């Protein structure tokens, strides 16, 4: 009878372990989600952290660098600021610097942007006939940076890590695959 009791307690401990792992995993996922949503509320931005996708702001930001955004409507738009804006009818947001502003007494503002690495201002990017951007086009302001590529340049890892982050942005399915694999790894790994 002793061996049977031994087998039973072994089975119970394995199921307890499994439940514990699943709950643990659930806790990690929900904490991550809460932190992300919390960041969205605090910054007012739909995407508080973004990956730089183009080289138009080099040498400051390279593809693969991280930017922290806020989107407080009451923050005034002034020259020199790095704004994230969307052109009417286009989906991809652009991260460029404000070059010129004209603001009326009632707060209406029209402004012009330019990428640091571009020779000309952004009027060629705006809609046909559009010469200025307005407050409604702004989706965020770059307030902080985490230049991963700068550290990684020296380690010669840039091409590979940069490609991973950019792939995750360009192909959402890849992002889910990576997250799924990460989740699986956490579940399987006991330590």
């Amino acid at each position, binding site marked *: 009878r002793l061996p049977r009791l031994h087998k039973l307690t072994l089975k119970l401990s394995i199921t307890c372990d499994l439940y514990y792992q699943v709950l643990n995993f659930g806790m990690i996922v929900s904490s991550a989600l809460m932190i992300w949503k919390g960041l969205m509320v605090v910054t007012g931005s739909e995407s508080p952290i973004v990956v730089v996708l183009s080289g138009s702001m080099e*040498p*400051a*930001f390279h593809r693969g660098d991280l930017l922290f955004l806020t989107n407080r409507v009451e923050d005034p738009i*002034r*020259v*020199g*600021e*790095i704004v994230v804006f969307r052109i009417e009818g286009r989906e991809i947001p652009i991260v460029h*610097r404000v*070059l*010129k*502003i*004209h*603001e*009326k*007494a009632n707060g209406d503002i*029209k402004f*012009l942007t330019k990428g*640091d690495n571009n020779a000309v*201002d952004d*009027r060629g990017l705006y809609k046909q006939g559009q*010469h*200025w951007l307005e407050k409604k086009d702004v989706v965020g302001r*770059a*307030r*902080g*940076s*985490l*230049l991963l590529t*700068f*550290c990684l340049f020296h380690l010669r890892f840039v091409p590979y890590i940069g490609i991973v982050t950019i792939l995750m942005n360009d192909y959402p399915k890849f992002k889910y695959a990576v997250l799924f694999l990460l989740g699986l790894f956490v579940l399987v*790994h006991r330590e």
Partner: protein
Amino acid sequence: MNTVLSRANSLFAFSLSVMAALTFGCFITTAFKDRRVPVRVHVSKVMLKNVDDFTGPRERSDLGFITFDLSADLQPIFDWNVKQLFLYLSAEYATKSNALNQVVLWDKIVLRGENPKLNLRDMKSKYFFFDDGNGLRANKNITLTLSWNVVPNAGILPLVVGSGQVSLPFPDMYETTKSY
């Protein structure tokens, strides 16, 4: 801890935590530093024209020309967490149609390692100084300021205004003969 894979995994996790700690260290040691330095801006020549704004809205607008000198020592701003400074000279003024106007006349990128001492003479503006209308003529108060955007490896992206602004008036008459 006795397979290559588990050892590699621990090593990777450890390196990641060390890099994260270093990055946070980079951020916290420079987060509250004062990024201001004294700046000297001097304007040697001012000229005003009135032409069609060929850079965008094709309306007849005031076009200003300013020749300036700049000197500043930016060395104190650079540290291990500063990747570059984006310097820009901006003109700020008010007109009848717009309460606030700001136009960047000139900009420069100074990377860490490059010469941080700025000593420029007789500089012409890089960008056309077009007003939104005709508000530059007889405008008594155009303020030129040199500011910079500090780009850190890890941290806040502040806009710092250099002390030593200079205010200048624009002439009452348009220049029709001389060229810039």
